[in-house]
């Protein structure tokens, strides 16, 4: 178990280093030097070269990479020349709101998908199962932005139940309390995730139902309800842990689109604004954070799985 842990953490560190190398490579190719942004678009080449030399942008690739890693390890994500602030400051203002949106959507998705998947597995091939499967496929195939637009049109414009825009408040605690504005964004992101989760949950629950211990529990005389709550739910949820780790990139991409549609001042909207300004430091810093979150999330999910499933721990 300890050796598995060490191996897993070692692999993750190697992957993180590889990611930083890939991101820096992209940065170097796409945006070799911010000289033109600082000096203006009509600066002559001599001036640009002098600026580059002064700030270390014409050093060899490896030297620049090591400098970049040094910066990262000190928590400095770079400088956003178009916003004229540190990237770290920009992120600090917004990360709490993005985290709230993503976390709530994930929580809602898990809370809905687990019972839904189990219901589908128990009532297999019934009308309910087929209806939920069709809805899941429709929602899964829909792009996030389309679902968001439909929800806005139906629930915010045609029938004014919710607000068509997300909460614009800067205080994340006010945002948390503002259900009138935040329901639709959270619902959008959650629905897309539920579609995928419920399919996996359904097949996992179907597999678990065929296990011998379910048969034994029923033979013992346990009520069906006890069989489900005590045996089925716990065992069918195990793949869900791995799945949560695997959906982190999709959640990041989904939150980018959702925040853009609902004008929610989070990291996704910052990414969209930086795209329009072509501010590559911000873009690549966010990509690096996203990639690191994915690796760490998968590591945590794997470790959680070894804790939750003794069969893996003892193998």
């Amino acid at each position, binding site marked *: 178990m300890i050796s598995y842990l060490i191996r897993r953490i070692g692999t993750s560190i190697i*992957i993180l280093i*590889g990611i930083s190398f890939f991101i820096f490579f992209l940065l170097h190719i796409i945006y070799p030097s911010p000289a033109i942004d600082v000096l203006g678009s009509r600066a002559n080449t001599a001036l640009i070269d002098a600026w580059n030399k002064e700030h270390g942008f014409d050093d060899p690739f490896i030297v620049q990479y090591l400098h970049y890693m040094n910066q990262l390890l000190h928590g400095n994500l770079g400088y956003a020349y178009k916003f004229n602030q540190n990237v770290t400051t920009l992120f600090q203002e917004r990360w709490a709101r993005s985290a709230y949106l993503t976390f709530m959507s994930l929580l809602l998705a898990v809370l809905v998908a687990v019972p839904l998947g189990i219901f589908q597995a128990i009532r297999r091939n019934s009308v309910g199962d087929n209806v939920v499967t069709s809805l899941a496929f429709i929602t899964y195939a829909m792009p996030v932005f*389309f679902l968001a637009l439909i929800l806005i049109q139906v629930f915010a414009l045609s029938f004014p139940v919710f607000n068509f825009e997300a909460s614009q408040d800067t205080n994340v605690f006010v945002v948390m309390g503002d259900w009138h504005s935040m329901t639709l964004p959270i619902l959008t992101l959650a629905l897309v995730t539920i579609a995928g989760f419920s399919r996996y949950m359904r097949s996992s629950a179907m597999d678990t139902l065929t296990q011998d211990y379910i048969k034994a529990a029923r033979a013992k005389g346990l009520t069906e309800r006890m069989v489900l709550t005590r045996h089925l739910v716990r065992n069918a949820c195990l793949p869900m842990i791995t799945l949560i780790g695997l959906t982190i990139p999709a959640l990041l*991409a989904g939150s980018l689109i959702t925040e853009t549609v609902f004008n929610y001042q989070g990291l996704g909207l910052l990414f*969209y604004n930086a795209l329009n300004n072509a501010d590559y430091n911000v*873009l690549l810093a966010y990509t690096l954070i*996203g990639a690191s979150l994915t690796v760490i999330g998968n590591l945590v999910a794997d470790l959680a799985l070894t804790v939750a499933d003794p069969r893996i721990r003892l193998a």
Partner: protein
Amino acid sequence: MTHVAPSLPPLDINRGPTAPEGGEIGPVQSGFKLAMREFAQNRLAVIGLGILAFFVLFCFVGPLIYHGDTINTSLENTLLPPGAGHPLGTDNVGLDVLGQLMKGGQASLEVGFFAAFIGIFIGTIFGAVAGLIGGFVDSGMMRVVDVFLSVPFLFVVLIVAVRYGASVLSLSLIIGGYTWLVPARLVRGEVLTLRTRDFVSAARAAGSSRGRLISRHLIPNAMSVIIVNVTFNVADAILAVATLGFLGFGLTTRMSTGATCSPTALLTCRRATGG
């Protein structure tokens, strides 16, 4: 008594392969024909193929039949509801929506299929080589796949689209550059299982090189996994193109399906309808 010459066998004898004792000669049992017959008997598969064929015809043959105006804007005809001359109405600059759907679908389908093809091609070879060689090389190759898989796909596509502009070729290349990751993993898994089978040992004993082993034996047997995966890849690529178009960074020289839903277009629509 005249000597009767031995008679020739009657002309209707079955000249095909003779069946063994108690057996029957049935229809063709292997290869492409069998696959086609199985496919035709599965109703869902035929319906799916029909839908796909409909969309391809709609996008590529449609514009030849239905001449919706997607080039000349006409500001007196903006935001018309569906009616005569415009079966699906017009958008906020007067271009016909049905014509736009057809034209946009062309680019989306092209990018989708091209990107999926690139992805499958690279991914299959990468995965097969990794699975066959095994050991340290295999671990290294899979770590490379892990690194690329961890970076969120949409972000890198957006960044490259902003920097290099989005054309059908560049989008296909960058989407294909991400699509190869999952087939590589899957094919490697399949090859690891297939490696231990007898036919591989037989091929090795017959002296086949690694390349021949991969191309002639391993990849054809891993086809089922590859085919399932390529269908998802095409869908993902088309969705990626639509998302890019929605955010405003999509194909600049041609229409695509997402661009008609872009935020600016929608805002104008909303204002116009008073909603």
